């Protein structure tokens, strides 16, 4: 079955082609069926593959499709690699992907036929790219998927192309991704130069044979790629803007899958990272800083999706922190749980927005639990999960990372746990302002409020269940030794010590208690603050600073965008007036010379003869002063 793994990405691709090419003629229902159906089949296939893979002693299989680039000594084939890590990701992607497709059939129903089909074709294309990303057996295929998801993200963010702002957001996403991609590319070039190959097996095999400096450079560059894709400092600003896309997109791409590509990639190349402690520290620091920064910003956002977006950034920071401290499986674990609860959160938010008729401002919501029970319950589960309240999944994955962070450096832990507290706070701020209290919107909106249809709620429920229970896949050793199924499952890929530094059980327990207590405090504080009096005032002072996202966008504008723009303007001027001016100047010089030179042709014989004689004089002088 693993040999047929190529079917998994190809099916969504087929869906993309069908929906894309016949978008004008296909009825909407068929579009939905094709769109979701292909992903569903892929999911089934993934499950089958997963079935193969999870057996003990499964050897990673590389499925070679064809020579992609074969030049001189460089051979890169279009090959897929099936192993525990990729199989897991297959499941997450196709599973969550399918749910979100299903959700979209209802959510996007108001779109016109061709646009509806376009949406599904984009989604399918995204799933395809993402699958290529995780299946790729070498860095180049990974990179193909890597850029592919970036493209789909661009397309989907700008899906409502009539709104120029969305277009800008899409562009921003793509360009920031590209900046990261350039780093990735350089890393690939470096591999080619140093290892002569980009195959995982070969690169990892030869990793020990080159200097640490090279490995550090490669890993750092790869990490640059990851910061772009996974929205880390300094390239994170695109993600909140990406919320311009339809909500299912945010759920699928900007929460569940694409943004975790960076984590996948680093986990995948952990062999290299293990050899580069400097990079590990950088990853951890950036991760922790991002987690903290995004969390603080999330505190003051009023747009429901923006809060979720910053929360995503923050959670991604966690994952990088996990990677940085060597807890690869923790990071992957968090990827998985995060996929569930964050997708759920987004879909729930989508459901809310849907009900509110497109309104995303939390200040206009409130008391929705009355109208939307299913959404409310599932949303609450997700909030609990993300806040790290046991026994929801977030608790397990987050604490695994925090524990590893403590083992590496307590400061990481402090930042992490404080961020966890902030997370709990802002999530429940969100929850409380949205679902509790009284409705603050217009009457028309109130009249409109309703629970979403089944196609929306079913995915919510499924995800809610997953978000609730997925944590038990990785029960920490504190509770039961060797019960960490995920760790065991991934160990063939991630290595035996993928948990980071093991702590003593007592310490680990202590840490857990601290984080849970903090989370609970956060929940309670937010509940207390916003449930009764949910009006969100204009932020002032530091709050304003946070509400304005630390003015990072403004900073980037001032430091990068403006100067570049000015430079471009200057160069345009330079091109037109200096370089072209010189070129035209040569022409004009010739004409000027012509005008001047013609004056010699005075029409006077005397003048002509005079010049002739002077010519003779010159010749004779040359003759006199040259030696033979």
């Amino acid at each position, binding site marked *: 079955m693993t040999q047929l793994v190529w079917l998994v990405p190809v099916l969504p691709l087929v869906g993309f082609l069908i929906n894309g090419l016949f978008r004008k003629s296909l009825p909407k229902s068929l579009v939905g069926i094709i769109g979701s159906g292909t992903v569903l089949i892929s999911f089934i296939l993934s499950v089958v593959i997963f079935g193969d893979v999870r057996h003990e002693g499964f050897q990673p299989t590389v499925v070679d499709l064809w020579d992609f680039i074969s030049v001189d000594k460089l051979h890169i084939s279009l090959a897929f690699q099936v192993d525990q890590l990729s199989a897991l990701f297959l499941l997450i992607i196709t599973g969550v992907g399918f749910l979100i497709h299903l959700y979209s059939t209802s959510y996007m129903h108001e779109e016109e036929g061709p646009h509806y089909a376009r949406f599904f074709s984009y989604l399918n294309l995204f799933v395809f790219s993402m699958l290529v990303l995780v299946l790729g057996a070498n860095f180049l295929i990974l*990179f193909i998927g890597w850029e592919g998801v970036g493209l789909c993200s661009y397309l989907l963010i700008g899906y409502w192309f009539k709104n120029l702002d969305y277009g800008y957001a899409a562009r921003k996403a793509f360009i920031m991704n590209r900046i990261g991609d350039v780093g990735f590319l350089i890393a690939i070039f470096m591999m080619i130069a140093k290892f002569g190959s980009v195959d995982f097996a070969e690169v990892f095999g030869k990793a020990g044979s080159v200097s640490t400096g090279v490995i550090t450079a490669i890993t750092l560059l790869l990490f640059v790629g990851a910061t772009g894709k996974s929205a880390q400092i300094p390239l994170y600003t695109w993600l909140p803007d990406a919320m311009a896309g339809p909500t299912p997109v945010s759920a699928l791409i900007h929460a569940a899958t694409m943004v975790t590509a960076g984590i996948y990639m680093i986990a995948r190349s952990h062999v290299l990272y293990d050899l580069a402690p400097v990079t590990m520290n950088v990853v951890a620091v950036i991760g922790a800083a991002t987690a903290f920064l995004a969390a603080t910003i999330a505190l003051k956002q009023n747009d429901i999706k923006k809060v979720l977006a910053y929360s995503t950034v923050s959670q991604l920071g966690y994952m990088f922190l996990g990677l940085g401290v060597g807890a690869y499986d923790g990071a992957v674990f968090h990827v998985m749980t995060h996929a569930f609860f964050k997708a759920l959160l987004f879909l729930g938010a989508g459901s809310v927005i849907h009900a509110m008729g497109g309104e995303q401002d939390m200040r206009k919501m409130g008391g929705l639990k009355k109208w939307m029970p299913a959404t409310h319950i599932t949303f609450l589960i997700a909030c609990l999960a993300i806040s790290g309240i046991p026994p929801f999944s977030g608790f397990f994955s987050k604490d695994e990372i925090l524990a590893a962070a403590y083992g590496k450096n307590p400061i990481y832990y402090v930042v992490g746990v404080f961020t966890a507290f902030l997370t709990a706070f802002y999530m429940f701020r969100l929850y409380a302002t949205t679902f509790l209290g009284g409705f603050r919107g217009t009457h028309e909106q109130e009249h409109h409020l309703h629970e979403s249809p089944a196609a929306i709620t079913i995915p919510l429920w499924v995800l809610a269940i997953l978000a609730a229970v997925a944590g038990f896949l990785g029960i920490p050793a504190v509770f039961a030794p060797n019960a960490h199924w995920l760790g065991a499952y991934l160990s063939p890929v991630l290595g035996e010590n993928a948990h980071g530094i093991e702590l003593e059980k007592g310490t680990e327990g202590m840490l857990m208690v601290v984080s849970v207590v903090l989370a609970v405090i956060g929940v309670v504080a937010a509940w207390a603050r916003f449930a009764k009096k949910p009006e969100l005032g204009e932020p002032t002072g530091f709050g304003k600073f946070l509400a304005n996202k630390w003015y990072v966008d403004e900073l980037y504008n001032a430091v990068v965008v403006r100067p570049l723009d000015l430079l471009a303007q200057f160069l345009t001027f330079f091109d037109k007036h200096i370089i072209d001016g010189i070129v035209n100047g040569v*022409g004009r010089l010739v004409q000027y010379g012509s005008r001047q030179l013609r004056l010699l042709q005075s029409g006077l014989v005397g003048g002509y003869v005079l010049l002739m004689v002077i010519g003779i004089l010159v010749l004779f002088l040359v003759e006199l002063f040259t030696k033979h």
Partner: protein
Amino acid sequence: MVAVLLVLIPLVTGLAGFFFKSEGLAKGWALLSSLATLVVVLIGLGMARDSAALHFDCAWLPELGSRFSVALDGLSLILTLLTAIVFPLIFISTWRDKYSKPWNFYALMLLSQAGLLGVFVATDALLFYFFWELALIPVYFLASQWGGERRIQATFKFFVYTFVGSLLMLIGIIWIYSHTPDHSFSIKSFYAMHNKISGKDQTWIFWLMFLAFAIKMPIWPLHTWQPDAYEQAPTAVTMVLSAVMVKMGVFGLIRWLAPVVPVGFWAWGDTVSTCCIIGMIYASLVAIKQDDLKRLVAYSSIAHMGLMALAVFATDANGMQGVMIQMFNHGINILGMWIVVDLIERQFGTRKISELGGLASKAPGLAILLMIVALANIALPLTNGFVGEFLLFSGVFSSAATHYNVVFTCVALLSVILAAVYTLNMIGKVFFGNTNALTSRGVDIKFNEKVVLAAIVVIIVFVGVYPKPVLELTKETADFLLTSMNYKP
């Protein structure tokens, strides 16, 4: 025979074309001729590489040591293929364009095709020079006759600029020729000179000939003819110029210069590379600020060609094959870009980005096809552009010809980001947003245009996904080049 047919078909049909004094007839004739050429190229592709039919040689100017000898190797094949694909596509896509005296237009187009094909197949330096100019002259007339408002000045600048270059090249060719022991223009004799020319002379020759190629490509700062010429030429001609003609520069570089004066090449590689890189960044930045679609594409082309030149000077196997495949890819992609520009201009009578907007809702087909072409242009994976640029950058990075390979790569890669900026900017401003008074009249593309763009997309995706056939085609040439370029005194 194949090689000589390639030149003869467009030449003869082109000359005959002047006498078809009817628009339909002239168009049909041109299309037929270009399709015939395409068939011939495809036959050539199907032949074994060492097949005798790919070579042709007969006496031409025995006293001068010049023979009419043409041959098709991998590099020639890929470029003739490009030329042969581009011309029918141009004819089909501009089928609805109206020209005064269309027979002259089409005849000149065919003549320029003859010149281009001749450049790519010639294995005699003098013949090469002949075709080099033959390709230029019809284009000059085409652009001056049927171009935009400032066509005369712009085209003339273009002509004189390239003419200066080619004359300097002629000096270089003659110099080498007069120093060959057998007084021959044959490419073999030229190649045999690579270790016989002193370092100082190699510098001379290098610059004389390089200038011609640099102007043609063009490499910064010799590029200013290009935006003007592209802007002013009728789009069909712009397509020829940018899709095929600029490749002549790169082609000349790797066929006629690199293996002949390797020492000069090595000695000046860093200088030229620096220019290329400046040009890449510079052109990309300037492209961001362009309001005219044609100028935008023109500057983007400068950036792309700069990269190819950079990779040539990197003298690395990956880079060299990248150059060859990218020449093909860039030709196809930019052709697609021009077709879109042409469609827009024909429909709305303007190329100003600021006057357009919201086209995606009126012409979704156009928007999608442009999107794919544009993505190929910014080298997104699974498009042909990616394969090329990946190899190019990889070649530059691994280059042993310079100490600054890492710096070069990193700086040059900035252009990849900038390319995304200006391309997406353009897409955003032209296609996204709401329609305005002008663009609300827009309609989607017609059948013929769809066919052409679809064909281009197919090529883009095919090469992007399965570049192997193309890469294998040029393998031998690249190997040979590297061996001969690696000569060190």
